């Protein structure tokens, strides 16, 4: 078994990506893309969204952009890093460059652990050589599909501005242009070592998404699937989001658990199912969350604070701890900041991409509004808002215990159903939709994509509110806020940046691994210093990006089930040495549900092809002679050396009772006689000196 880490990822929105070679099959674990690198592009530049006397109009003005002009280049070199440094072109999307080094057709299985892990998949599935079987949980597949469809819709705005890009690589990807990029952007475009340029792809189409979805086999939690009869694959709740999962892969040589970013208790999703991951041979620990945790500035202990409207964005930094309570506090804080803003006449903009968070915030904000008797509207602007809201209320099987209890007590799973009925929450497919134009009211609370602040309704709303010091933007950590907010400067709007629980806490990972009782753990090199893995309980090896690791410790032998009726028919013999009993096998070998099984098969076929016994050992001449004499044979011996002097042949002449010769070499005994009985007698003597199987 071999394991290669293609990418360590970067937090919640960009999960890691690995390749696992197991039992002759190649498994790709997740296929994400790095949407945070969108920040290098200018948001849809020419479209603005303004309001005059309470009416909304939208106008678009085409601005000519001449990237080729020398003047422009000089300007770029000399000017400080600001809005104009951003690339003004239809964005491309960055997939994992290491994945491009692998032959697509060699991938047998793709396992998707989260909706984020699916976003890069259409780039693979549109390749005609792609033939892998893709597994994802039903909920992850559905959310992933909605996210991709939304992405395609939002991207259309760029196409409208820049026109279709065509197949040639865009101007900004030329080396002379890349050279001119400020270092901040150059690193995004090229990666640290300049190798990532190949990862930029133009976005897939809606048809590609549809095609991709058709290639996915969706699973329930703990549903068993058999890949090629050899691998037993099961998904278990990871607690990170609704439908996210860890994987268990069992093959005849052993079992492996893939532990993706996991959360012990979630306020929406079904909690981490760790009992089902216990006692695997190998655990691939792929939760890099601590690597991406914010620069731990909590020592200054200033606690949650809203941002200073100027350049530096105040980090509301919480030590994320595996504790529901802390998450609740964060939500409460967001709510209270939102209430402050809205009471001051500002609006609240929440471009958070986590479905679970959106659902919780919706409930909490609505509750806050209600308790303070405030009648401000809540809007969700997204092309998939309606489907998302409908879907989340029909999936009790994917939710945590508290949500399921709501089903049992006859309540809706989420309060948004009621909010929608009461018209306190309204869904709009797009910023220019008629429904939005006729129902829009400010101040308001808006949930919308996209967290990169480059795509979708958020761009329009940010442009609209960025100078309003009463309004507030709720952002997630993990996005480079300096860069993300660059096009909207100067920001007067408040910015609340917060981190949500995205994986296993370091201090808990050791405990979790102990609980899981594996025999071997693959652990990220990056976290090595921070976690002392108990050496007495399991062995461990450490992996880094772009490295292939041989995984030891899987069983040397595969498990084979021999049907009892067949086992009873085998003939056992005890070997002359070492007290070993052996029997020649027969029957048909089948591979069923991940198990090798030897069955009493098709009788005629088996019986007609009974294989002759094999004799093992060598004939010691002295012993043979003694035995022959004991049998009453009158014999003489002669030894002949081969011409090269290397091989010796012994010739035993039998004179009585009948004539015979026995020619003995290392590998063969040849009995020459015209007498049936004598031949038989001699062969019995010879056989008795050998092992016969």
């Amino acid at each position, binding site marked *: 078994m071999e394991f290669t880490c293609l990418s360590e990822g970067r937090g919640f929105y960009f999960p890691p990506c690995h390749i696992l070679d197991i039992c002759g099959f190649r498994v790709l674990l997740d296929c994400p893309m790095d949407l945070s690198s969108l920040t290098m592009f200018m948001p849809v530049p020419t479209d603005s969204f303004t309001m005059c006397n309470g009416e909304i109009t939208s106008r678009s003005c085409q601005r000519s952009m001449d990237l080729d002009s020398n003047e422009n280049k000089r300007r770029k070199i000399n000017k400080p890093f600001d809005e104009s440094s951003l690339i003004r072109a239809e964005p491309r999307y960055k997939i994992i460059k290491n994945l491009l080094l692998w032959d697509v057709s060699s991938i047998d299985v793709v396992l998707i652990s989260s909706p984020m892990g699916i976003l890069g998949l259409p780039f693979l599935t549109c390749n005609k050589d792609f033939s892998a079987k893709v597994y994802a949980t039903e909920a992850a597949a559905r959310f992933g599909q909605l996210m991709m469809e939304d992405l395609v819709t939002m991207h259309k705005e760029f196409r409208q501005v820049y026109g279709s890009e065509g197949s040639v690589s865009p101007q900004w990807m030329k080396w002379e242009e890349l050279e001119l990029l400020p270092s901040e952007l150059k690193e995004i475009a090229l990666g640290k070592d300049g190798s990532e340029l190949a990862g930029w792809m133009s976005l897939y189409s809606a048809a590609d998404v549809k095609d991709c979805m058709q290639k996915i086999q969706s699973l*329930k939690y703990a549903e068993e699937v058999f890949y090629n009869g050899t691998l037993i694959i099961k998904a278990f709740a990871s607690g990170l989001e609704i439908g996210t999962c860890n994987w268990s892969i069992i093959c005849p040589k052993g079992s492996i658990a893939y532990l993706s970013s996991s959360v012990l208790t979630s306020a929406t999703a079904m909690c981490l199912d760790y009992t089902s991951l216990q006692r695997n041979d190998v655990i691939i620990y792929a939760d890099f969350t601590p690597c991406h945790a914010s620069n731990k500035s909590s020592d200054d202990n200033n606690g949650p604070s809203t941002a200073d409207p100027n350049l530096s964005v105040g980090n509301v930094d919480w030590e994320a701890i595996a504790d529901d309570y802390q998450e609740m506090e964060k939500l409460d804080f967001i709510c209270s900041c939102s209430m402050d803003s809205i009471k001051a006449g500002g609006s609240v903009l929440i471009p958070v991409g986590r479905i679970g968070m959106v659902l919780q915030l919706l409930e909490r904000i609505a509750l806050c509004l209600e308790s303070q008797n405030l009648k401000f509207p809540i809007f969700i602007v997204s092309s998939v808002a309606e489907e998302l809201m409908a879907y989340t209320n029909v999936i009790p099987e994917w939710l945590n215990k508290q949500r399921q209890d709501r089903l049992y007590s006859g309540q809706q799973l989420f309060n948004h159903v009621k909010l929608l009925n009461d018209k306190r929450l309204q869904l709009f497919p797009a910023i220019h939709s008629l429904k939005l134009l006729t129902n829009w009211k400010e101040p308001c609370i808006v949930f919308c994509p996209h967290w990169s602040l480059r795509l979708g309704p958020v761009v329009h709303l940010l442009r609209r509110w960025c100078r309003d010091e009463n309004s507030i933007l709720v952002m997630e950590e993990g996005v480079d806020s300096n860069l993300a907010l660059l096009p909207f400067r100067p920001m007067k709007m408040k910015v609340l940046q917060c981190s949500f629980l995205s994986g296993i806490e370091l201090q808990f990972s050791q405990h979790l691994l102990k609980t899981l009782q594996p025999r071997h753990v693959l652990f990220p090199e990056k976290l090595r210093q921070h976690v002392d893995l108990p050496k007495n309980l399991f062995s461990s090896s450490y992996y880094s990006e772009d490295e292939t690791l041989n995984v030891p410790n899987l069983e040397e032998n595969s498990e084979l*089930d021999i*049907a009892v009726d067949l086992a009873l028919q085998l003939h056992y013999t005890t070997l002359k040495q*070492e007290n070993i009993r052996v029997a020649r096998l027969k029957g048909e070998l089948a591979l069923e549900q991940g198990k090798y099984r030897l069955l009493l098969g098709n009788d005629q076929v088996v019986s007609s092809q009974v294989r002759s016994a094999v*004799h*093992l050992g*060598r004939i010691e001449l002295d012993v043979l002679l003694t035995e022959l004499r004991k049998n009453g044979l009158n014999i003489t011996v002669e030894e002949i050396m081969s011409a090269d002097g290397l091989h010796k042949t012994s010739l035993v002449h039998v004179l009585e009772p009948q004539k015979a010769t026995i020619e003995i070499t290392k590998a063969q005994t040849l009995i020459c006689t015209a007498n049936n009985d004598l031949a038989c007698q001699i062969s019995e003597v010879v056989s008795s000196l050998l092992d016969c199987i």
Partner: protein
Amino acid sequence: MAIECLVLGAGQEVGKSCVVVTINDKKIMFDCGMHMGYSDNRRYPDFSLISKSGDFNNSLTCIVVTHFHLDHIGALPYFTEVCGYNGPIYMTYPTKALAPLMLEDNRKVVDRRGEEEQFSSEQILECMKKVTAVDLKQTVQVDKDLQIRAYYAGHVLGAAMFYARVGDAAIVYTGDYNMTPDRHLGAAQIDRLQLDLVITESTYATTYRDSKYAREREFLKTVHKCVAGGGKVLIPTFALGRAQELCMLLDDYWEQMNLKVPIYFSAGLTLQANMYYKMLINWTSQKVKDTYATRNAFDFKHVCSFDRSLINAPGPCVLFATPGMISGGFSLEVFKQWAPYESNLITLPGYCVAGTIGHKLMSAKTPVRINIDKDTQIDVRCQIHQLSFSPHTDAKGILDLVKFLSPKNVILVHGEKPKIAKLKEKVQSELGIQCFDPANNETVSIPFTTHYEKVGASDALLRSTLSPNLKFLRKCSEQGSDFSDLDVRTKPGLQVFDDRMAEGILMVQRNQKTKALHQDELMAMLGVESHEIKFANCCPVDIANSDTRNAFLSQPTVDKSFWQHLLFEKLSSKFPETSIQDYGEHLQIESFYVSVCTKEMCPHRTASLQCMPETVYFCCTWSIADEKLAWEIISVIKNLLLKDE
């Protein structure tokens, strides 16, 4: 070893389904139902047969409930809250959500009848708290050895068939199921599994049904005719299941025909149930699922709730009233009022449990006088329509399922005795599968030996055995199979049909795991080589004075090939079954080689017979495996020139 099935209910009857299956030391109770036709101790399964001391926690491993119908779950609160069972209970999400409504509804009916209460509302809730909900296909590890899994069964929302496996022994308990999709639910779906036993319902053991569509039209027409004539339609149903299915039918029809006659639900209960249905939309039919985002099919347009005062209000209406089968409660109350009028209509389901009013009406011809209880009689003059579609599979469906699963044994439950007996015949004669139809409190014991011995197998052996001749094997599981193409399905397993396995050796060593390995590996491990034992004999045939020789002597071509050919002919006639190869230089039969020997001094010749004139020598070699055959051939050679008799 054996699988033991103790049938505590639904043995040769319908009602109080409960089968306790013991596999190794695991004991699983499938369903825990009540009998609607009894109000004495016959209403519950006789739990004392599980444990005399009443220590159910130690005697049972778990309880599995297939669906929310009372004949499958009605005794559960009694068993947990009164009998004290505290162990794990499994059912699907919808069953867990909807069962309390059914239980509570029934409790009220019992209450109203003035019978002694068996358990309280609180006890129902306490009982439900002990339930672990499962999703379809989710493989639940009950303990280290016992695995269970639910499969879609149609029938009612959340109904499931359950698969249970302990080691290599596996069974399926179907509960109630439907093999054809209906308005709101899909058809049963299960994987091909290797099963020792299937326990199946057999409500319609002898019925064969045609298109459901025509029967639905018939129902709608009858209802329409009644309301058009100003009559009232009473549809007694249980709160869940049939009510939603019929309501979808009527709601659609009302929409199509633009009817304004009110459709009522008898209590808030059923309307509330619709909300559960909306959240559980993923458990309905594909058609209903596909449209939920735009319009949830359980948002009925024409349905409103009923008020008691409307019972005798003038004008036509359709009323859904609980409980079904008119076993008491509100449906009985309305029945008493409406039954005496000819213009009214009462619909009954295809099956009513013996002892209910519904059952009495089924066999009755109106007008008729029936006894409600010992003091009350009702003259029934209204029309009675019996629904001819049902959420149960018909006999063909049962046989299809059994054939699809091809278990080693079948037990039939949940059906009437004579019908079950007929179906049992069919299963045995048509499918050749051992079939049982035990009565209540009987135990069926199905012998089974541990099917497999586990050994380690070396890579070299598996590689050499698997690689050359991969062949798809029929039989066994494929995900999400359906039943229409019973014979063409293949499974993703591989199977080999040659004797390469014979190069495999099973090696047993003290204190070590038994291992299967390739014979080459064994030799390398032991440091030995193979040693072949072969035989040779240069066999002389005297041709002097032979007729054959004389006959051909004139021809100059009498040589090596002549004699070899002659031998070939002779051997072919002597060993017609055996394949004889003529390679020109020699003939070969298995390991036996023979050629005409032209050597002056052949080492395989016995010394005294060196090179006689007028003698042809046949030089033979063979391996020990063909010893017997070889001497037979040699005797043919010796007699080569004798005429055949």
